[in-house]
């Protein structure tokens, strides 16, 4: 995922690549025009020495001859590498003589003190070429001596001052471009982090909102159940009223039985005992019924309290829902802003 690579690259500067911070097309155009304008060669390489742009205004001497053999090509690579290393060490453009005898320069491209590439250039002379030494080189790298000498005589002769100025310009421009590019990269990372964070917040808000709905639904179910309990309690009380009136009837029956027993005199004594038992039974029934009445009254009280608490919870949940709505609106605004920011950061 591109996003993750961007994060990794900015966090670990050593993994930062030149093409991450500079638009290669823009660099190429600049390089080409500059090389033509100043009449010197130029190319941009990464920290491994691999070219990231196409070479601009390379001399025939270099392309057609020096680079044409393996030995020559390897020597060029070596020479470039050394030049780049020296430039990196000083952090400033470095002007030197290449293995073939031309004047080259290396300008380091730095970001936050770390080198991410080098602009190489030059391929000019500061004085007329010494034919002898060039013939020697031609033999060493195995190219045609005469053609080699012919080519070197076509190489432009310039002053040291010119070369210094050219190297300086390339150095300033490349580093400015990469600095700006790096800032933009950091901005991209931050804004995409923001987008991700806000998306997460949005998702969490949705979850919260839906859980609030669940709570409300549960509350309503709870309220229904509480009403149910109240109804059942009322029914129980009705039944208890029946039991009480049965107990009263039984007592009356018992008393009447006692009266009859008294009237029967001695014959009624046994019956009198039964009558007493009946009265005791009715008294116990009544007492038990009273206990149940007390219990259902306690249940009603407890249920009423539960109802009050659940009402208060409902109020809280409603407030919560309102707060969630407000927060969601704010988050959506922020998300819109962040998306705008992200779009800006990704502009070319």
């Amino acid at each position, binding site marked *: 995922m591109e996003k993750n690579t961007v994060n990794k690259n900015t966090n670990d500067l050593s993994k930062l690549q030149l093409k991450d911070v500079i638009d290669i097309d823009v660099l190429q155009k600049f390089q080409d025009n500059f090389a033509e304008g100043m009449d010197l060669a130029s190319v941009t390489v990464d920290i491994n020495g691999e070219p990231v742009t196409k070479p601009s205004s390379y001399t025939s001497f270099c392309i057609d001859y020096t680079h044409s053999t393996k030995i020559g090509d390897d020597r060029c690579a070596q020479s470039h590498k050394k030049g780049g290393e020296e430039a990196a060490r000083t952090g400033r453009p470095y002007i030197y003589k290449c293995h073939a005898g031309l004047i080259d320069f290396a300008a380091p491209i730095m970001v936050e003190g770390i080198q991410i590439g080098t602009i190489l250039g030059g391929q000019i002379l500061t004085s007329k070429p010494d034919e002898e030494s060039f013939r020697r080189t031609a033999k060493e790298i195995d190219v045609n001596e005469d053609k080699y000498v012919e080519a070197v005589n076509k190489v432009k002769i310039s002053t040291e001052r010119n070369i210094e100025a050219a190297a300086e310009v390339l150095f300033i421009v490349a580093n400015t471009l990469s600095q700006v590019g790096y800032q933009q990269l950091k901005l991209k990372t931050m804004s995409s982090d923001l987008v991700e964070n806000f998306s997460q917040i949005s998702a969490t808000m949705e979850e919260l909102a839906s859980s609030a709905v669940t709570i409300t639904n549960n509350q309503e179910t709870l309220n229904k159940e509480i009403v149910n309990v109240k109804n059942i309690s009322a029914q129980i009380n009705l039944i208890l009223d029946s039991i009480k009136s049965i107990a009263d009837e039984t*007592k*009356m029956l018992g*008393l*009447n039985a*006692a*009266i009859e027993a*008294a*009237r029967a005199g001695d014959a009624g004594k046994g019956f009198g005992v039964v*009558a*007493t038992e009946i*009265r005791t039974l009715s008294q116990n029934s009544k007492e038990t019924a009273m206990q149940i009445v007390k219990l259902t009254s306690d249940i009603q009280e407890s249920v009423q309290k539960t109802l009050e608490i659940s009402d208060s919870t409902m109020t809280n949940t409603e407030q919560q829902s309102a707060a969630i709505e407000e927060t969601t609106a704010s988050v959506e605004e922020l998300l819109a802003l962040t998306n705008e920011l992200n779009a800006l950061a990704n502009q070319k």
Partner: protein
Amino acid sequence: MEVLLFSLSDEKFCIPLTFVEAIEHTAQITAVPKSQKHIAGLVNIRGNIIPVVDMAKLLNLDKQIHMNKFILINNQKQSIAIIADDVDDVINIDEKDIESIVMDDSKFSLVKYQNIVATLISQYELNKI
């Protein structure tokens, strides 16, 4: 002696079982015009027309009664129903639990049973009806 313990408002009374016939639920009382104050009216109980006596008025009790039960009593002359708020129990009392009190020109008998004091309705009171 066995007595029936009953309540009129918060006052307790007792009447010897020998006078008591039965305990009944209350029924519609038909008022009798120009009758004495303590006669509440007439009632039909199991086909018999019986006068209803308001004991509270008879004993000059200034209390509100609720008329929950009728106690059918027989004072040898006739059956009458007396109104009671609540019929409590049948209890056995000793002669020594009865105290006679004279106030003004009225004679009362009080019965002590456990921690209850009840006015005894004896033949004397019944004769007044």
